[in-house]
């Protein structure tokens, strides 16, 4: 039942409170609305019950193992939340003067410095409000760089087919033509195809490393050489930064620009539709183009905003203020709690957990897409054989996992691998959780062999059964139009 359907005219938060609200008569009549807003009229208790029930129907990282590959659904420590909500910080107005904002600005400055250090980039701007905006910023800076040199004939961005799905969209948004290059059977970029694709028209290449197929790009140094020699720049999609955090750095691999998804790697809340944070880091030559405002420190140790005045070549502002402050603060707390040593452990345990699961699932008879490669923080299982022989496909397995109490891994992505699961356990899960998931997969495999209809018609234990996603896509209807 929608909360709108519970609405009763005139019902308010406290049923027993007097109807006349003092203070309203002070508001000049011309500022009062003539009609009440079209909001549900329910009591506070109804609202609490409604949203509590909804949250109980939900799968979330606070309730279930959530191995959604390419999304890094790790646990968000409560301390990050608590500290970012300190009243002094929460109450700071975004237009407050620098002299009243030194504590807040110190956190942002330190976050910029920590992100620089851990990625090996020369400068960082925290402004982009999400991963997608970070990508847009990155490619917009590549364009600004070429334009500033009068090198405007560069019209193409190269994107390997194992790249993150948003990469081609970003390139097109920034006015580039996308040139796709294939991935070899072993998961690495096809270097011959790359050599053939680069030229005076190449503005840059967008890479995710480790790539979306869950392996580290071994030829990254050679790729950087080929693209740089052609006059192009290298863009690093930070989607999979969790796998290498503190172990190796995109800056050292030769990347010129990177965006980081703080809501993935730096454990800020994720999957609720925002707000996110997608800071960008750059090499020396892209520094002048970073979006403002950024935080700098003067000779006396005081923090101040860098604006268009100090950075005249900036691509400009992306939002009214300096990024999603609450998310940035949570990331700062997270980074400070981990420290340098902790970040290395993030990558080590994320990778260990993924490789443990890959090995155990293989033992259990599941087919890995890249069995000869060591997994990074995620890996791919292909259920092609099950789909062919048992007529039970990846989506059926995914839905049945929900009955076993596990959020399904990413399905049917990357598109390169048929009937695939992209599984990312993250470093925050205990071995028992990983073992539980593996046991569930074994059990579903048995069911697929002995009673396939149970799997095909899953889920059976959730508030809704199998949703008709085809009909939902064909007859999209998201509007509530009253009873």
């Amino acid at each position, binding site marked *: 039942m929608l909360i709108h359907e519970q609405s009763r005219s005139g019902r308010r938060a406290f049923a027993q409170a007097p109807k006349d609200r003092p203070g309203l008569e002070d508001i000049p009549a011309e500022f009062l609305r003539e009609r009440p807003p079209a909001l549900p009229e329910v009591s506070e208790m109804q609202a609490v019950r409604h949203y509590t029930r909804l949250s109980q129907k939900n799968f979330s990282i606070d309730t279930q193992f959530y191995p959604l590959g390419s999304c890094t659904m790790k646990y968000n420590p409560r301390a990050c939340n608590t500290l970012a909500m300190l009243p002094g910080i929460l109450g700071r107005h975004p237009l407050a003067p620098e002299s009243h904002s030194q504590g807040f600005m110190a956190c942002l400055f330190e976050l910029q410095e920590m992100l620089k250090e851990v990625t090996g980039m020369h400068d960082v701007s925290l402004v982009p409000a999400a991963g997608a905006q970070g990508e847009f910023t990155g490619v917009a800076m590549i364009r600004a760089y070429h334009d500033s040199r009068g090198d405007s004939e560069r019209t193409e961005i190269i994107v390997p087919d194992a790249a993150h799905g948003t990469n081609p969209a970003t390139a097109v948004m920034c006015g580039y033509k996308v040139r796709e290059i294939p991935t070899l059977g072993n998961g690495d970029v096809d270097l011959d195809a790359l050599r053939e694709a680069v030229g005076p028209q190449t503005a840059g290449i967008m890479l995710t490393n480790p790539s979306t197929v869950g392996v580290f790009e071994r030829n990254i140094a050679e790729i950087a050489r080929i693209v740089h020699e052609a006059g192009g720049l290298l863009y690093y999609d930070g989607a999979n930064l969790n796998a290498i955090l503190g172990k190796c750095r995109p800056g050292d691999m030769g990347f010129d620009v990177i965006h980081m998804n703080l809501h993935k790697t730096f454990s800020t809340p994720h999957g609720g539709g925002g707000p996110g944070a997608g800071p960008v880091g750059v090499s020396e030559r892209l520094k002048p183009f970073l979006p403002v405002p950024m935080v700098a420190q003067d000779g006396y140790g005081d923090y101040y905003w860098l604006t268009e005045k100090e950075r005249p070549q900036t691509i400009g502002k992306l939002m009214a203020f300096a990024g999603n402050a609450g998310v940035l603060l949570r990331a700062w707390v997270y980074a400070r709690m981990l420290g340098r040593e902790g970040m290395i452990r993030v990558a080590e345990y994320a990778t260990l957990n993924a490789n443990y699961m890959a090995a155990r699932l293989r033992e259990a008879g599941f087919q890995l897409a890249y069995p000869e490669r060591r997994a990074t923080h995620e890996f791919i299982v292909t259920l092609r054989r099950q789909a062919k022989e048992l007529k039970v496909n990846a989506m059926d397995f995914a839905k049945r996992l929900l009955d076993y109490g596990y959020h399904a891994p990413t399905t*049917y992505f990357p*598109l390169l691998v*048929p009937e695939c699961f992209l599984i990312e356990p993250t470093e925050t899960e205990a071995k028992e959780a990983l073992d539980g998931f593996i046991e569930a997969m074994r059990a579903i495999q048995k069911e697929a062999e002995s009673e396939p209809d149970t799997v095909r018609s899953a889920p059976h234990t959730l508030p809704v059964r199998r949703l008709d*996603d*085809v009909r939902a*896509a*064909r007859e999209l209807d998201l509007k509530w139009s009253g009873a």
Partner: protein
Amino acid sequence: MSDIPSELKYTKTHEWVRDEGDGVVTVGITDHAQELLGDLVFVELPEVGAEINAGDECAVVESVKAASDVYCPLSGEVVAVNEVLTDAPETINSDAYEAGWMFRLKLVDEGEIDSLLDADAYAEHCESEEH
């Protein structure tokens, strides 16, 4: 194994081509392609009158799993499109080679047809992609 009619020609990117004579061909996506994509929910067709080069993206098919470009198998001018698909994209799932045709081309060079794959070569290509 999916259906690959022997009288048609094919591309490596999973389009089929039927020679209608007089330099006109009909184009669609193969049964194998629709099987990989799953239930289609949206089809974007080229405009009648558009002149398209072989290898260019000229249409889009979208399923619940993925959106995929359709590449023009040969160079020519679009002389007809299958309007039925706009409201009933699932026609391609049920009948990829007949009712599910996508568009007709008036070819620039009829000889180009010979450069396409025949049914055996296409079957072999699908097989090799499986591994």
